[in-house]
């Protein structure tokens, strides 16, 4: 149903793996992609490969940031926060709206605008993350395993539809904010391998955030409290850890990262709608499981792997079946390493 209005921006870039088929008419993608393939193949295999690597890493960074939210929440309360994908979607919407507000205020200096948007997206998305936990999950703590999951699915449906009602069902296009890029090298057939400034921004920001979060989790008292709750919530409570607050903080941290991912998607792919949360969330959760759920580096690794799988599968095989490839690889990994790539092997407690 979205397809009718796509003629409005036919010049949007093609590699928007995260948005999948909803935003781009299926047939059209196929045709253009094939066309592109041929051109690029003529250009040179190595260069093409490198270009896909860069695109895959960019996409993977975004998946990784969302995956961290899943993995942290799963680690601490053992639930799949099904609404996390929609938190990411809300982050993307808040980014777009903040850009518009800044535009209306006449602030056009790009670095300043980026910083303000980043902060606003983080703050307001965090409030969403906090509220969801407070209203939908906290009352269910300690009840049986599936109750919070169903509640989360309910929240996910509600958020999607709330945004659809409040912001309209049409896709929101964004003009590029950071343009240009570096040509890494040009091969003999005149094919350029380009890394855009935006891609550099995304990767650098991801690395910085990862470093920051790793520091928080491993070195600070907050991180220790989180790890304590992860091991044994009752015991942590007994020795004076404020369990409720720690769990809330975890949700807030996850939401902050999802907001950053939302901003990145807005910038990189230039178009969002209320439905992007589901697929991105599913992929990111797959990434978390692939990397070993509960493991922070695992989530990042899983995210990057899935980004790469998608980029390369779309480039060398068929874009239509990239999700099949992603899930297929997940199943294979789980069969041979049931706890994911970096998950701790479990010794069954009998």
């Amino acid at each position, binding site marked *: 149903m979205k397809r009718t209005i796509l003629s409005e921006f036919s010049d949007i870039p093609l590699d928007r793996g995260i948005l999948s088929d909803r935003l781009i008419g299926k047939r059209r993608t196929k045709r253009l992609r094939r066309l592109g393939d041929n051109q690029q193949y003529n250009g040179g295999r190595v260069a093409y490969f490198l270009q896909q690597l860069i695109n895959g890493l960019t996409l993977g960074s975004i998946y990784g940031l969302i995956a961290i939210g899943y993995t942290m929440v799963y680690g601490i309360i*053992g639930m*799949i926060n099904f609404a996390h994908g929609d938190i990411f979607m809300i982050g993307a919407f808040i980014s777009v709206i903040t850009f518009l507000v800044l535009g209306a205020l006449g602030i056009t200096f790009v670095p300043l605008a980026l910083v303000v948007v980043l902060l606003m997206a983080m703050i307001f998305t965090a409030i969403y993350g906090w509220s969801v936990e407070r209203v939908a999950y906290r009352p269910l703590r300690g009840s049986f395993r599936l109750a919070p999951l169903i509640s989360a699915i*309910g929240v996910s449906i509600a958020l999607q539809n709330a945004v659809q009602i*409040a912001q309209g069902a049409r896709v929101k296009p964004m003009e590029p904010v950071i343009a240009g890029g570096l040509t890494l090298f040009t091969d003999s057939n005149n094919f350029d391998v380009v890394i855009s400034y935006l891609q550099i921004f995304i990767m650098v920001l991801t690395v910085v955030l990862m470093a920051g979060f790793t520091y928080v989790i491993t070195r600070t008292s907050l991180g220790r409290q989180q790890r304590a709750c992860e091991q044994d919530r009752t015991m942590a409570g007994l020795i004076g850890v404020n369990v409720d607050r720690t769990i809330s903080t975890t949700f807030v941290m996850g939401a902050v990262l999802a907001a950053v991912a939302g901003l990145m998607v807005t910038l990189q792919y230039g178009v969002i709608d209320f439905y992007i949360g589901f697929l991105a969330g599913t992929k990111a959760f797959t990434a978390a499981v692939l990397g070993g759920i509960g493991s922070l580096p695992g989530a990042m690794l899983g995210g990057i792997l899935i980004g790469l799988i998608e980029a390369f599968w779309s480039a060398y095989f*068929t874009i239509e079946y990239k999700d099949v490839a992603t899930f297929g690889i997940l199943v294979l990994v789980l069969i041979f390493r049931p706890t994911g790539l970096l998950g701790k092997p479990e010794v069954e407690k009998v």
Partner: protein
Amino acid sequence: MADMKNAVATPGQGGFDVGAALKESGKAAFVAGLLGLPLLALKADNFGSKLGLVYRWDALFIAIAAVFVGRFLLILLSGRQKKSEGGVFAAFGKGIHSNMALIGLAGLVIGVLLPVVYPDRYVIYIATTFMIYVMLGWGLNIVVGLAGLLDLGYVAFYAVGAYSYALIASQFGWSFWVVLPLAGLFAAFFGVILGFPVLRLRGDYLAIVTLGFGEIIRVILINWTDFTGGPNGISGIPPITFFGLPFKNGDHGTFASFFGIAHSPVQRIIFLYFVILTLATLTNLFTQRMRKLPVGRAWEALREDEIACRSLGINPTNIKLSAFALGAMFGGFAGSFFSVRAGFVSPESFTFIESAVILAIVVLGGMGSQLGVVIAAFFVVILPEVFREFEEYRMLLFGLAMMVIMVWRPNGLLSFREPTIRLHPKKESA
């Protein structure tokens, strides 16, 4: 919100602290304001190919006011209810469970009489949809409710059943009654294919793999255009016949002519309704019987404690596979019914939201409770129908309702479990 409730409800021993309630409502309204500020008060509206800002401060203020009043009323009600709630609900639950067989029978009689009393197209149509969801709920109940396996991709088996009938009937012209068992078998086969590698995974890993499987089936249905018709689906699927007699106008060999009555389109709709009623009833009887058999008991035991099961020599993989395959089979039956009724299938009908709805029916109903599934299916199918005029807000309300019911009754509406075998007769007044 439990802690807030207590904080407000306790002072004055049952008395109501207005100040605290107002403060609490104020807090909630403040948070609602923060939530609404970027997404409700400001709208990124499409102007041609560009976005522009639209301000809607009125909507924000209405939302804040609504949250304030809503929270206040909630505190007011929860303070009042606390005293009576337990007793009423316990009595209600007990009443239902001591008369389970009677209620089931009554339900069946109502189901059979409905088209007689109310031969209205629309009513029968909704009742048929309701029964499809009841059947899907009962099928998934085997997997999730009894065996405790979290399946987020149940819709895949529904799709396999639907496409089985659509393809076989339109290619070979086989009758529904021949294809129905085949569709069930195909779906069960898919269940085994999926289940074999993944059933040894831990619960939540199983969830993501089944979710992925559901998406894979959908992606294949969309993209394998030559076989499945792609996004356009398959239309012109042969309609159902009365065991060979078509429901159409004609003097010879039609349902109407055979019974010597006038043809009416409602006959087919009523017949479809009875078919799904029968299928669903059989699903229920099958499950009820299975619960009393070794396999069914092993399902429940596995849900309770897999390690203990292994120590008793129960093969967990086989037991899980059997639950998965049987659940899938009923999904397949329901799917092929879906396609014979609609005459049209497309991948749009088999999105994740369907899986979520079916899972919600099982969990909201109370895991493992057959009657609970019926009640939850009623909520999920009939209520949105009632609120059809709020078209735009339907799914929003649905999502919120799912969350609220779960928070209100975390174990589902009916969470009571009747043992499958008794040594002593049930006591009447316990």
